[in-house]
C-alpha cells in the first residue's frame, strides 16, 4: 500500500510540477499518472484508461458500470484511485461519496474483492474542500494532494525522523519536543481511523455475502483540520531534521 501511495504523493508534489500540460480537461493529469505508475510500479498491474470493470472484468450490483480512474493490482492488495485535477473548484464531499458508492456498487456484487485488502485513495492536484477531506477520513479513503500526505506516508516520515534521532543527529530541544507530540498525535490519529479502513469495515463472508461493520461517530471535520495540521507539522519537522543532519555533516 505504501508503495502505491508514495507513488501518488510523489507524482502530485514532484513529477506533475514538471510535466507538460495538454489540451485536455484535466491537462493530462490522469494520463501522465498512469504512465508514471507503469514506469515505477513494475510489480503492479495498472488498469488501462477508461477502465469500466474495476480492472478485472467485474459487473456492478446496479447494472451500471463505472469508470474508475486507476485500479492498481498487487498480489496482496487492490488500490482504487480517484483522480481530480479541476482548475475551477476543488473536490467536495459529493466527489468523495460518489467514489465510495462506486466501490460499494462493485462490492455489493463481488464479495471476493474483499479477499484482498482494498486501498481506496483520492488524489487531487488542488487542495481539498474541508468537507471532502472530512468525508475521506470518515470513509477510510486515503486523501492525497499538494502537501497532503496520506497516513502511511506520515508514518514513514516519522520513522525516518526517529532513525535520525537514534543515530544521534543533534536537534534543538524544542524540535525534539515537537517531534514527540507529532508522533503522539500520529498514533492517536491512527487509532481513531483504524476502524474506518475499508478492510476493517467490510469482510468477505461467502461468495454471495459480505459483512459490514458499523463504524463512525467521528468528528471528521475537526479531524480534517488536525490532519492538515499534522501534514504541516510533518513538513516543518522534516525540514528541521534535514537542516540538523546537513549541519552535522558539515
Amino acid at each position, binding site marked *: 500500500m*505504501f508503495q502505491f501511495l*508514495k507513488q501518488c*504523493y*510523489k507524482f502530485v*508534489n514532484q513529477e506533475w510540477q514538471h510535466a507538460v500540460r495538454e489540451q485536455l480537461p484535466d491537462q493530462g493529469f490522469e494520463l501522465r499518472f498512469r504512465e508514471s505508475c507503469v514506469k515505477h510500479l513494475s510489480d503492479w498491474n495498472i488498469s488501462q484508461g477508461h477502465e469500466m470493470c474495476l480492472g478485472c472484468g467485474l459487473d456492478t450490483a446496479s447494472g451500471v458500470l463505472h469508470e474508475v480512474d486507476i485500479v492498481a493490482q498487487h498480489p496482496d492488495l487492490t488500490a482504487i484511485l480517484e483522480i481530480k485535477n479541476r482548475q475551477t473548484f476543488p473536490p467536495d464531499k459529493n466527489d468523495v461519496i460518489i467514489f465510495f458508492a462506486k466501490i460499494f456498487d462493485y462490492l455489493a456484487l463481488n464479495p471476493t474483492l474483499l479477499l484482498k485488502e482494498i486501498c481506496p485513495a483520492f488524489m487531487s492536484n488542488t487542495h481539498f474542500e474541508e468537507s471532502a477531506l472530512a468525508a475521506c477520513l470518515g470513509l477510510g479513503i486515503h486523501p492525497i494532494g499538494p502537501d497532503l*500526505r496520506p497516513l502511511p*506516508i506520515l508514518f*514513514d*516520515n516519522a*520513522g*525516518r*525522523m*526517529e*532513525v*535520525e534521532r537514534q*543515530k544521534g*543527529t543533534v536537534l534543538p530541544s524544542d524540535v525534539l*519536543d515537537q517531534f*514527540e*507530540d507529532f*508522533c*503522539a*498525535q500520529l*498514533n*492517536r490519529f491512527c*487509532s*481513531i481511523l*483504524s*476502524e474506518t479502513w475499508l478492510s476493517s469495515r467490510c469482510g468477505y463472508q461467502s461468495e454471495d455475502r459480505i459483512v459490514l461493520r458499523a463504524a463512525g*461517530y*467521528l*468528528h471528521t471535520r475537526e479531524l480534517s483540520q488536525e490532519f492538515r495540521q499534522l501534514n504541516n507539522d510533518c513538513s516543518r519537522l*522534516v525540514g528541521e*531534521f*534535514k537542516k540538523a*543532519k546537513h549541519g552535522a555533516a558539515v
Partner: protein
Amino acid sequence: MVVLPKRSIGVSKSLYSPLGLKDLPFPTEPVVDPYNNDPRRNGAIYAESPVKREIEKFEQLLIRPNDFPNRVRLSYLWSKGDRESGRGMGKTALLRYFRQRINRDWGQTEFNGQFSAVVVYVAFPSQVDRRYMEQLAWSALVDICKNGVLNDSRAVLRLEALTPEQGDLVLQCPDGSHNPDNLLDDSILQAHGIEITALDKRVAERLTSEGVQPQVSLSLAQGQFREYLCSLRKDGNLEPFYIPRHTKNLDYSRTLLFNDIVHYLRAAGFAGGYLFIDDIENLVDQMTRKDRIEFAKEFCLCTMRPGYANTAYNFFSCVLTTHQQASIGLAQAWGEAGLSTIARLDPNSPNSVELPLPSEDQAREIIIAHLDYHRTNELDKGTVKPFTEDGISALLKRSQHPRDLLSNAAKVILHAIDKKITDVDKTVVNEAMDNSAPPSIPDFSEGIDGAL
C-alpha cells in the same frame, strides 16, 4: 418419520495426537487476552518458575497478607525494551496470574480468610481518544461488570439484609448443604416468603447510607448495574469506551469507580483492591506532552489525593505495566503531578518489578508448561516431548523472547504435523523456521533524506 439426530459422544481424534498432544499447544497469536476463552491466549497456561523472583517481589510489595493496609499504593511492572521488544514479555500474563489467584475466591486463600480483596483489570483494547482518565475508569467499570464481583457482593449484602433465620433457610439446599447462589435466585427467596422488592430496597438504603448515590444504589441492589452503565450511553453499549458525541458515560465514570464502587465493595466486606492497568504504553503513545501532564494529574487526583472514597480508604492499589520507552514519555508528567515522589517511574525504584528476558532454562520451562497442558499421556509431563533435546535447543537458540518463542514453537509444531513428523529434532525446527516468511519490517535506513 422423524429421524432424531445423534449427538457426538466420543471425542474425535486430534490432529496432534501423533505428537502426544490434545491440541496445538502454542498460540499462533501469542498476545495475552484475559477475556479470551482459549487457555493458550488468556494466560491460563503459566509457568511460574521462570518468574519466581518477580512473583515474590510482587507479593512483598502488593499482597502482604499480614500487613495489607501497608501495601504500596502505586507500583510498576516493567519489561525491558521499547515499543516492539518490550511487548510480549509476559507482563499481561503475570497480571492475569495474580488476578486469577486473588479473584478465584476474592482473596480468601491469599489472605488466609482474614478479609476479601478484588483485582480489577484495566486495558485499552480499542480506540483511545482524549479523556484518558475517564476511559481508564470506564474500562475498570466494564471489568467489574464482567468479573463477577458485583453479583457476589450483592449476595452478601442480601444475606446481611435478611434475619439470621431467613438467611439460613435461603442458603440451605435440600441435601443439607449451603449454597450462596440461592441468595441471587429470586424464586428461592420468594419461596421462603421474602419479598424481593423490599429486600432490594433495604440493600439500596444501606448502600446509600454508606455513600453510594441513590440511583446507583438501587441498580446495584437490583443487580442492574451493567444496565445502568449502558443507560448512560446513547448506543446502549459498554464498549468501545470512547465514542465521540456519546460521552455522558465518561462524565460519570470516575465518580462511579472511585466513589460508588469503592463504597459498594466496602459495604460487601472488601478490605481493598487492585487496579491492574495494563498497556499504559497504548495510552502514552497517543498523548501529547500536554495530555500526559493532564492525565498524570488526574490519575494522581483519583488515586492519591484526598477527594474520592478510594483515597479516603486507601482502597485500590494501582499496578501499571509499561516498558522503558513509554516511561520516558511519561516521566516528566509524572514528576509534575507529584507521582514520582510516591513511586519513582524507574525500573530500579523500590516500587518496580521488572521482567527480564528469560534465560534458556526459563524459556524451556515456558515451552514445557504449554506442552504439559496439552499432553495425552501424563507420563510425558515435565519432558520436552515431542521435541528432541537438539530440537528444543535449536528452538531456544532462535529467540527466548516469550512472544517470539511461543510463536516459533507454534510454527514448528504445525510444520511437524504438516510433514507427519513425530520427533521434532533440530532439522525439523530449522526447516520450519526457514520456511516461515520473515515479518515485513519498514526500512528507514536511508533516513530523513528519503522522507517525502
